[in-house]
């Protein structure tokens, strides 16, 4: 693409490079954003999207390369400089202060020194004019993730930016909330503002973006008009090869199968002022099926996982039953001994000890259940057997690594996740509970993990998957339940489930009464 300084481009980036140690996160990136367009930045996790936008917003300093703003070469040395130029950013991981009110959060990002009361009034007016209603006096800690994103957007709009960068904005929204966001974005485009839209959701990129730049392994691999592409051609550009489709054979006679995981009237008080209480959750997961739990982040999924896995014990031992036995009073090890396996959301520090080798991590989670295989007389570790088992898992899950038995932290996110899931699958557990199985995992590895979960269920295990990725749940689940504000809806068989129905439940339409949802909506 030739240099263009006639002012039609609001932002031009040429040869932008960022190196972290031995990793080149961004390698000579070129990017042009015209006035009044919605420009998509596509790429898998780890492709360098977030690094690129952090450089555009001044949070990171590039090693080399140039940035032109309205044709003028600029150096964006801090977020303050970016804001002065007219660049606004809505962060993926929110940069809000939980203990402050919405108005105070907004005031902090404005430099004009106006009193907080007048900011509250301005924010309220602006939020209603864009159809994003907001109560400026509410504490951020009390708000849902969707409402928090509204604050981020309003905060960004109040600075009247020319370019708005949105980093994965819909990953925390229900489909209906996302629709509302798209309306806002189209309105902003009509006002002549430019938007850089970062996403890995191809359908929405096709729907609202005018142009797209695709990144892979830190390099630009193509520019295209997303409207002329198909979702699969965009995916091919992002991944660089065909992605294997997940196969899910329908199950038969599931109604008569034995429930292996039973949750009965599970409740939990909020542990901190900002966490969600669980209210009377009941669910059966039978042998041979995958049940998916959908929901917007922060609706009690984390609390639910902690309760089911035994990280937090229940008062009522019968509220969690594994293979017909009361498990509510048992610890994680106790529940594992009953035949259950758990994969938490956070890989490093929760699912695996970062500075320990893969074989040691294997021993940590399975020393109790596989005591005879891994621990010999007098408590001595049979390191040969542990090593052999870890190699078996590495092979079965196709874990890519640089050393025979590396530290967990040395693996990429996707490969570590494959190992952690494989470590539990290797036991052939009869109950498997997974929270966010493929969060931040590249498409190839994600397909592998999903297929493995389906196969585990078809071999006679009960699989429960908690995920915020609706596409994933529709791909692997036999039934989907929705968690909203600590309550769980009845599972909806996959044949009856649609994005719209699940989306309405995610937004809080009558949990537990899925069949009436469409009438009330």
């Amino acid at each position, binding site marked *: 693409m030739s240099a263009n300084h006639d002012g039609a481009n609001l932002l031009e980036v040429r040869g932008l490079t960022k190196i972290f140690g031995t990793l080149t996160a961004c390698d000579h990136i070129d990017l042009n954003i015209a006035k009044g367009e919605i420009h998509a930045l596509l790429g898998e996790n780890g492709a360098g999207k977030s690094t690129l936008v952090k450089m555009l917003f001044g949070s990171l300093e590039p090693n080399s390369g140039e940035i032109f703003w309205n044709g003028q070469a600029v150096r964006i040395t801090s977020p303050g400089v970016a804001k002065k130029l007219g660049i606004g950013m809505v962060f993926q991981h929110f*940069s*809000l*202060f939980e203990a402050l009110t919405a108005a105070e959060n907004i005031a902090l990002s404005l430099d004009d020194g106006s009193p907080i009361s007048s900011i509250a009034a301005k924010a309220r007016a602006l939020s209603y004019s864009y159809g994003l209603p907001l109560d400026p006096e509410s504490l951020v800690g009390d708000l849902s993730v969707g409402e928090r994103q509204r604050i981020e957007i309003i905060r960004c709009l109040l600075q009247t930016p020319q370019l708005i960068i949105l980093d994965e904005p819909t990953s925390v929204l229900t489909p209906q909330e996302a629709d509302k966001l798209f309306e806002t974005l189209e309105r902003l485009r009509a006002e002549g503002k430019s938007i850089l839209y970062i996403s890995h959701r191809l359908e929405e990129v096709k729907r609202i973006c005018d142009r797209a730049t695709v990144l892979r392994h830190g390099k630009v691999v193509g520019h295209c008009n997303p409207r002329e592409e198909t979702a699969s051609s965009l995916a091919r550009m992002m991944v660089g090869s065909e992605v294997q489709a997940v196969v899910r054979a329908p199950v038969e006679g599931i109604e008569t199968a034995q429930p292996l995981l039973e949750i009965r009237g599970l409740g939990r008080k909020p542990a901190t002022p900002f966490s969600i209480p669980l209210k009377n959750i009941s669910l059966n997961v039978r042998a041979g099926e995958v049940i998916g739990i959908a929901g917007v982040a922060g609706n009690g999924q984390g609390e639910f996982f902690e309760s089911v896995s035994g990280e937090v014990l229940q008062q009522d031992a019968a509220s969690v039953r594994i293979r017909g036995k009361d498990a509510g009073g048992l610890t994680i090890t106790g529940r594992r001994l009953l035949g259950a396996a758990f994969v938490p959301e956070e890989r490093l520090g929760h699912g695996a000890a970062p500075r320990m080798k893969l074989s040691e991590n294997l021993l940590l989670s399975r020393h109790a259940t596989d005591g005879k295989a891994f621990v010999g007389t007098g408590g001595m570790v049979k390191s040969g057997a542990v090593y052999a088992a870890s190699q078996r898992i590495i092979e079965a899950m196709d874990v890519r690594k640089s050393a025979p038995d590396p530290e967990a932290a040395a693996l990429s996110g996707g490969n570590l996740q494959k190992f952690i899931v494989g470590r539990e699958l290797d036991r052939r557990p009869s109950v498997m509970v997974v929270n966010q199985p493929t969060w931040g995992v590249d498409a190839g590895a994600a397909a592998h993990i999903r297929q493995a979960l389906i196969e585990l269920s078809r071999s006679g295990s009960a699989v429960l998957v908690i995920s915020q990725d609706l596409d994933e749940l529709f791909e692997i689940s036999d039934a989907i339940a929705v968690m909203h504000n600590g309550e769980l809806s009845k599972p909806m068989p996959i044949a009856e489930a649609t994005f719209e129905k699940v989306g309405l439940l995610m937004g809080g339409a009558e949990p537990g009464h899925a069949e009436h949802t469409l009438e009330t909506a």
Partner: protein
Amino acid sequence: MDITVNILLTIATAATPLLIAAIGELVVERSGVLNLGVEGMMIMGAVGGFGAGYLTGSPWIGLLAAIIMGAVFSLLFAVMTLSLATNQVATGLSLTLLGLGLSGMIGTRFVGQPGVRLPNLDIPGLSSLPIVGRLLFGQDPVFYISIALTAAVMWFLFKTRTGLTLRSIGDSHTSAHALGIKVIRYRYLAVIFGGACAGLAGGHLSLVYTPQWVENMSAGRGWIALALVVFASWRPWRVLAGAYIFGAVWIGQLHAQAFGIPVPSQMLSSLPYLATVVVLVLISRDKRLTMMNTPASLGQPFVPDR
């Protein structure tokens, strides 16, 4: 009647250094920095204040020197923890140890020397009024400074934009950095303010409370100030309440010991600590409010990735 007034005056004198040091530390912790060096900064303020007062003969120059001494000493902590991102707990502890040792060394020639005392306020007509005269218009200047300081910090933290920014840094330094707030600069200023306050509190000890230099004369007051901040859930008016409860029970048990009440003196000596903790725990029953006021990034070193 005179006895009551005298007791009230001694309570105020006992509470003032605690209040000043705790208010300073409160601002530091609200910015997300945990400085365990309060005791060290206080004793440095005490020796600096006494020394300057003794050498120049002016208690006011002594007080100024105490403030500067505390601030400069805290700068050491700021450079270590903020610029070099060392562990705040370890650095704070070593600051205390360093301060206790260094002040002893500096102060060897001051031991046993007569000090100078800051004169009490004396407003003709007002200060000689019965009862209220001495309580309201006849105390030492640092007492008035401590009350004004508490009010000013309350106003600053909760009514000004800069105060809001400071609190936001304590809540999440990564979010603050993402907004372009200069986290390190704010924290430097907060730490230095805290140091100046601790120095002033030390100056009060050696220029008002007992106008002489004795090694280790801070006697753990820095630690009490630190505890007050936590038990007061980082709220200024509660720090004030805590400091005065501590002062009152402290003076009360001294009088009880003098009267010869048949309770072991160790028991009485521990009473101020117990009473302060109990009262402050009772007023911070509201878990939610406590949580909201706790600086979430307290004690975590901040290293911006560039």
